[in-house]
């Protein structure tokens, strides 16, 4: 110990006695904000949550978080139109994160490695009927089973999958993938009865002693439009064409096929026709490309495959063997198509109508208290119909008709059914404010373009039903996952810990995040400005 000259030479670190926290007028707080991807997901997936695990290469953990909300990642990774990506903040930076492709990678990985879903902890002793083995039904069955209920799915068709099987062509969703994910749900102990059409729901429930039922029969009846036509004219509807694709006898469409409509189904049929050997597959749509409900990516692929589209056209009549009269339309100022009187003729071996689908509500006849509107069943915010204990979801209720929405309905309904069975009401947790782009400091993220999913060369694609879009391999999936900005939630980047001029941030260690040391924090706010993901918020000191 040296004898230090008074006042001139001081012992180190003694300024800890000076609590500069007293200078503060604002204080920083750690917050969690809702990532826009999670916010946008119809299936309510905790996307950022499972990406977090994927980033560190723990794919099983990622898959387990993912399947909390969605038992069908391999399917969703193929057929979802990923609204998550549309809302992804990264889109404003370079390109949205390929969430959907990582999801598919996880789904495929799970199948490849044979990961099993977590079985229920305890049996509830309640019996629930699920009508329809489509995405919504499967999702509901899965969630209900995990909550310990005894679940039976009654499916009218010969296979499980519903529209995933009868509406989506193989080249978009290989059937082995579908089968694998369905089987995994059944492995949890869900009973599946095929070719078991429910004629009268209430009778079935009473007869078999179900405590509740979830209806998800989908919409399988192709809409017809009145078109004057000769006897010889070959006119089919899209749903049947696609359904027949699953059977032995493939539909006979001829060399020149005209499809009428502008939805995804219309595109599926046209692309299917191409694969069945049609030289011409022409879509006739009464509005413009901008107005087309079909998904852009599918339209793009269809065009690449040589599908032709006549915009602003309606079919007036079908004369003789195969001559269609098409009338040109024009949009009025409201954007509605109006006839112009101009017509032209079009040669076609067959005309396929893809004008949307209706729901078969037969099983609901005589059920009291139901409200049916526009051909679909009305449900409350808890997915319950007018009849207590009878819930419904998917295409048969008012909503966008996608697999993802279906899965979301299934999950939501399951939670409410579970609550209802316990005589309670399910209340979802209050949502955090959304982590919008302006909350981020994106300088800290490396600029990295999205990994483009390799595609099969067009030639092979149009001649076979091989899957068009290929998946990511592990490295690219990892790369993609790591493009996530972790919007609104701390990812332990240590920025606050590093940038504080007063060392007023305490690092608690991996997974434990951080804590502010208010003894020394002067409230400068640098940590808030420099937090990349917007997980810090300055709030005024209470006076």
């Amino acid at each position, binding site marked *: 110990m040296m004898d230090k*000259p008074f*006042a001139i*030479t001081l012992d*180190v670190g003694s300024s800890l006695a000076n609590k500069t926290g007293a200078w503060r007028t604002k204080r920083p707080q750690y917050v969690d904000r809702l990532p826009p991807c999670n916010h946008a997901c119809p299936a309510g997936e905790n996307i950022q949550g499972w990406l977090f695990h994927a980033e560190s290469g723990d794919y099983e953990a990622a898959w387990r978080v993912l399947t909390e909300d969605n038992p069908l990642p391999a399917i969703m990774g193929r057929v979802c139109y990923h609204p998550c990506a549309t809302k992804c903040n990264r889109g404003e930076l370079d390109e949205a994160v390929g969430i959907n492709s990582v999801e598919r990678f996880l789904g495929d990985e799970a199948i490849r490695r044979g990961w099993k879903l977590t079985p229920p902890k305890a049996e509830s002793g309640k019996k629930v009927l699920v009508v329809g083995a489509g995405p919504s039904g499967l999702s509901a069955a899965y969630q209900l089973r995990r909550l310990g209920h005894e679940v039976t799915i009654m499916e009218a068709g010969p296979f499980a999958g519903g529209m995933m099987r009868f509406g989506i062509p193989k080249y978009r969703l290989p059937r082995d993938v579908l089968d694998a994910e369905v089987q995994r749900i059944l492995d949890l102990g869900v009973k599946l009865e095929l070719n078991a059409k429910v004629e009268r729901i209430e009778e079935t429930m009473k007869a078999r002693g179900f405590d509740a039922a979830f209806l998800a029969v989908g919409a399988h009846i192709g809409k017809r439009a009145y078109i004057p036509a000769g006897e010889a004219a070959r006119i089919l509807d899209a749903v049947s064409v696609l359904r027949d694709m699953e059977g032995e006898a493939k539909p006979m469409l001829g060399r020149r096929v005209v499809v009428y409509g502008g939805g995804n189904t219309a595109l599926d049929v046209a692309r299917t026709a191409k694969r069945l050997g049609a030289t011409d597959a022409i879509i006739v749509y009464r509005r413009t490309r901008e107005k087309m409900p079909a998904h852009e990516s599918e339209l793009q692929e269809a065009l690449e495959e040589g599908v032709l589209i006549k915009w602003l056209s309606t079919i007036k009549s079908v004369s003789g063997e195969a001559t269609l009269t098409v009338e040109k339309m024009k949009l009025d100022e409201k954007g509605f198509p109006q006839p112009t009187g101009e017509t032209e003729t079009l040669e076609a071996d067959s005309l396929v109508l893809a004008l949307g689908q209706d729901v078969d509500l037969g099983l609901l006849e005589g059920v009291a208290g139901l409200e049916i509107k526009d051909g679909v069943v009305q449900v409350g915010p808890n997915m319950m119909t007018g009849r207590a204990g009878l819930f419904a979801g998917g295409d048969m209720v008012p909503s966008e008709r996608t697999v993802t929405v279906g899965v979301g309905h299934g999950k939501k309904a399951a939670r409410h059914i579970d609550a209802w069975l316990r005589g309670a009401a399910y209340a979802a947790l209050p949502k955090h404010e959304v982590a919008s782009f302006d909350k981020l400091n994106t300088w800290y993220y490396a600029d990295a373009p999205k990994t483009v999913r390799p595609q099969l060369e067009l030639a092979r694609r149009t001649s076979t039903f091989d899957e068009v879009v290929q998946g990511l391999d592990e490295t690219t999936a990892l790369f993609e996952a790591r493009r996530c900005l972790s919007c609104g939630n701390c990812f332990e980047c240590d920025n606050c810990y590093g940038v504080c001029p007063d060392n007023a941030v305490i690092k608690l260690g991996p997974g434990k995040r951080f804590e502010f040391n208010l003894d020394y924090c002067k409230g400068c706010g640098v940590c808030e400005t420099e937090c990349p993901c917007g997980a810090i918020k300055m709030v005024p000191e209470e006076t």
Partner: protein
Amino acid sequence: MLKQTEGSHAVAEAIALSRPQVICAYPITPQTHIVEGLGEMVKDGSLKDCEYINVESEFAAMSVAIGASAAGVRAYTATSSQGLLFMAEAVYNASGLGLPIVMTVGNRAIGAPINIWNDHSDSMSVRDAGWIQLYAETNQEALDLHIQAFRIAEELACPVMVCMDGFILTHAYERVDVPTQEEVDAFLPPYVPRQILDPADPVSMGALVGPEAFTEVRYLSHHKQLRALDFIPEVARDFTRAFGRDSGGLIRTYRTEDADTIVVALGSVNGTIQEVVDEMRERGRKIGSVSICSFRPFPLAVLREALRHARRVVVLEKCLAVGLGGIVSDGVRKSLSGIHLNGYTVIAGLGGRAITRASLTKLFEEAERDELDQVTFLDLNTDIVSHELERERGQRRTGPTAEAILRRIGTVASGIG
């Protein structure tokens, strides 16, 4: 070992014998030969474990010494005149931080007018910088004082300035007794710093000190110098014991017992004064002299004791407090407070003006007759001064005084002095 050598070289040898670890060198006449000599010793390996740094200014010289000393090694530098003023800020800092640096000042005047010759204006200008100031009377004493200086500095954690008259001592060849390394090692232990910058035991040196503690810090540095009043003679006694000769201490008296007139002076001029004292004593005059070695701390008590019985004191100083008169005289007067005797201040030897026996004899005889003014400028050329004053009265734009005077006295005064 006895040697006939130059003052600067004798000092260089003394420094080398004191085993310095860092030496900072920046040239300025007349101290240059000292650092040149040391540079040679470091280069030829005779001075080992020593870093010799050629710096870019006196300010840097003292700063490097500060860093070295704070890092726990024995640091030395030398300067003169303008150089001392240029490092003045660092001079204060070294003492403020309590760093035992030893510095030689080869005393020299300060310009303008620029003048390279000897007087005490330089060291006097930093007399209150918190350094101990020792003035050497001979080259032997200069040599001895440096060895003592390190011991004093390191014991008290206070820097020491050893002042020796430029040219008169630094350039004079005379006999000196140079001690052996063993003798010096026995007298001067290795440097054990009181505070040190050491990663193993970190401290912060040089804190900002506010009104709440600054007075106390200053009091402590004053107190440190008061302790030096006891310690300096102690070291001098040890030195005498070890080396068998008297050197240093606070003051030295010469034939002051029963003296009516006592002359007080600093540095080499004491030799000439003693010659004059002897002559006058032979003529029965009661005169003596006192040589002040330690000017800081100022030895009030011992000086009072040496002077109290005299009738008059003549303070002969090689510096001028412009607008006041003497600098040393002030201290002497303070030492005599309450004692009534006639005090005279004589300003002599400014800018290298030779101080001769003749002038001193005349001066002291006038003093004995109490015919001196309060302040006397020895050998002042009154013709020149009055002429210059006349000229100034005459015109508004007078031009530089120094040049005017040189024009009047002609350039070469036969080179003497």
